[in-house]
């Protein structure tokens, strides 16, 4: 009946690179991908909030995902990418931008195959991780965007 039914378990993920690791977010959350542009700084905000940009008339905050994950900061260059995503935070749809090193690929991922992240390392970062999954011989970290962007 429903044409989507047969591969309902398959979810498309967009993956991006950060500090040589590959991370994935559900592609349906992605609105567009932009280059880095100068932001307007929000006073007294956390260091990972890089400020706000004007996205065709909408004020959109930009989050540096490296800093959010407490990874070392790298200088932005012309390859730095901002992924504009729409997530539901506290019951409201919010549009936000996340700064990542580079966009990588799109995979069809069977969500059930994902493994839980091992209980080691930074507990805070672990909360952002939905699961780990193997694609070919690579490992992709699937992110829980809602948690990542609950700021």
């Amino acid at each position, binding site marked *: 009946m429903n044409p989507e039914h047969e591969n309902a378990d398959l979810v498309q993920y967009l993956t991006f690179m950060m500090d040589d690791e590959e991370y994935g977010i559900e592609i349906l959350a992605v609105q567009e991908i932009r280059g880095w542009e100068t932001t307007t700084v929000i006073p007294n905000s956390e260091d990972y909030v890089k400020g706000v940009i004007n996205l065709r008339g909408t004020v959109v*905050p930009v989050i540096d995902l490296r800093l959010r994950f407490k990874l070392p900061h790298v200088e932005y260059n012309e390859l730095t990418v901002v992924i504009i995503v729409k997530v539901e935070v506290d019951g409201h749809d919010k549009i936000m931008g996340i700064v990542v090193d580079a966009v990588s690929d799109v995979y069809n991922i069977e969500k059930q195959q994902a493994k839980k992240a091992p209980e080691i390392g930074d507990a805070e970062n672990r909360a952002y991780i939905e699961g780990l999954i193997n694609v070919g011989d690579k490992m992709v970290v699937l992110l829980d965007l809602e948690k990542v962007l609950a700021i």
Partner: protein
Amino acid sequence: MSIDLSQFYEVFIDESFEGLETMEAELLNLQPGEVESEIINNIFRAAHSIKGGSGTFGFNAIAEFTHEIETLLDQIRNGERELEANHIDLMLKSIDCLRDMLRAIQNDEPQESEDAKQLTAQFQAILAEQAAPSGASSDSETEEGEPSQAVSAPAVTKVTNIFDINFTPEPHLFKTGNEPLFIFDDLAEFGELEVVANVQSIPELAELVAEDCYFSWNITLDTTQTEEEVLRVFEWVEDDAKIEVKLVAQFEEEAEEVNDSDKETTKAETPTQDNEVAKDSPKSEASVAKADDDGAVTPPTAQNTSTPKNEFRPVAGKTKATEKSKSDSSSIRVGTDKVDSLINMVGELVITQAMLNELGEDEQFDHSKLTALREGLAQLAHNTRDLQESVMRIRMLPISFVFSRFPRLVRDISQKLDKQVELTLIGEGTELDKTVMEKISDPMVHLIRNSLDHGLETTSERIAAGKDETGNVTLNAYHQGGNIVIEIIDDGRGLNTEKIKQKAIANGLIEETDGLSDQEINELIFQPGFSTADQVSDISGRGVGMDVVKRNINALNGTVEVASEPGVGSTFTIRLPLTLAILDGQLVKVGDNIYIIPLVSIVESLQVDMNKVNSVGGGVDVLRLREEYIPILRLHELFNHPEACQSLQDGLLVVVESDNEKVGLLVDDLLAQQQFVIKSLEANYKKVDGISGATILGSGSISLIVDISGLVKMAGLKKPGQAGLDFAKPLSEAV
């Protein structure tokens, strides 16, 4: 085919609220004893739409409750009952109750309410009373046929009529917006109904016009209603259809039910025809859509013979099962003229764009084309501005949306206070932004209550003062510059300046020796906790109020003032910006950042004279400006921009006022002043301390708008007291 009715809930609720407003306004026009049929009809129509709509969507509690109102109205309309003052009161209360019920739907709460039950009981008590013998009873031509309502009289014989009705509509019936289903529904409420559709006149499919009606119906109705009542059901379609009603049989029987309303009687007689069925059946949107989609084959005809009941069951069930949509979003109804003008302007814009495009694609672009280009750009600027104004106008609604609720309010309060009050509304057509409108209504209610309670004298006092015994309250709205001005004028006793002064001295707000003018003293009523009322009534006088009014209005970037003359009256004047969406602002530079300070809050900007700066304990600097000490807030400290200039001499001080307190903001430089469209920062981010919103500059980059009162809070400054400075904690600790 099923339709998700919940998508129409919002429209229904909006319309019902409007209907209730109409009912309320019309009810207030009614006087006991006199029945103006036009007014009653207006109320009736509004009630009927609400009943119909709520029935459609399965809000049975509302439908049933509205039915009670309708029954009473119907009797009044037919002259079977005199309109009494308590009827008006009861109906007004019912309107409040219906509002609550509608809100309950909005909030996804159950609509059943205790109030409704109580009011229903009251209606039934009234209806159970013997209808007033008002001479012109409508049953003169119905022989022994009782008007249905009189069934309540004890030991009355009940007449059951069996009618044979032939209903042959003209083909254009649907185009006139009529729906036979409604009629059958209404008839079904009268008694046992059988509907047989004649389908022989349906043409071949190729010749079939989907919008035409090819059916006629034979209806058998077993009812206690009179022929007249039955014909009334067809009132709307009598011009578009052939209607024959024949009385085929008549029975008399002893009434089983005594002292019961008409509705209940009908119910008891016809157990198969429970109310739910009649009211759950799809109407309006649902059935109209059905008719369209199925090529005018409406449900009852699909099976040739059927009572509406069986057909509608599934849909009714569906309605209930559907999840109620959350109505977070609010809507505006916009006049088509405004939309038309928008479309015009967009048309212009497209033309200009095409023209500029042509210029841009011209291979041989040279100086000669430059003039054309400039003209094109000028035209574009013009179009854009027009478009912006028109778009803003969409949010503008006439202030009558707020004003319309006040006649009721004044009526209720004046009854409670036993004062005679006449309310005059002027400038109801004055437009202002919807968001402002929503926020101004509460402060206005407060001011009006205040005028009625404290402003106006009692009737005896007025007579003693040689005034007309009816007090006057006038609401006046008009535009002035970019503001809307709303005046609340009463011709009461005016403010008691001496009393306010004494009270203020007693409260330590002012000193006997302060030498304030009367005007300044009068303004003291806006201070927190200030009330001069000797008696605390349940209407006003608790001393919370005027300061809240002032704070609410200030929060909208508006002001409120009072002018008063003893014995003549007081005038409260509210001034508000027309819209919250646009702000006049001053661009300031702090380090690498550009912020915007709302122009309304800026008092002056100056270069700091270091000789007048004193350091108060804890690192707070204050500037002596004329007779005042003004604390200095360094924006770069509060906003954490270390790259900005640090010393007082190098920067500029913008003196701003918020909540009656002045502070100086240290900035690097002043830039341009202009109008900004306010954008929300919270929509995608969160509330930021000291920032009220964002806007987009001409360059396309974003600039943040400074929230002055938020800044003061951030800095931890308390309001400087009268006797000197009083800081809650030092600035250095706060940042």
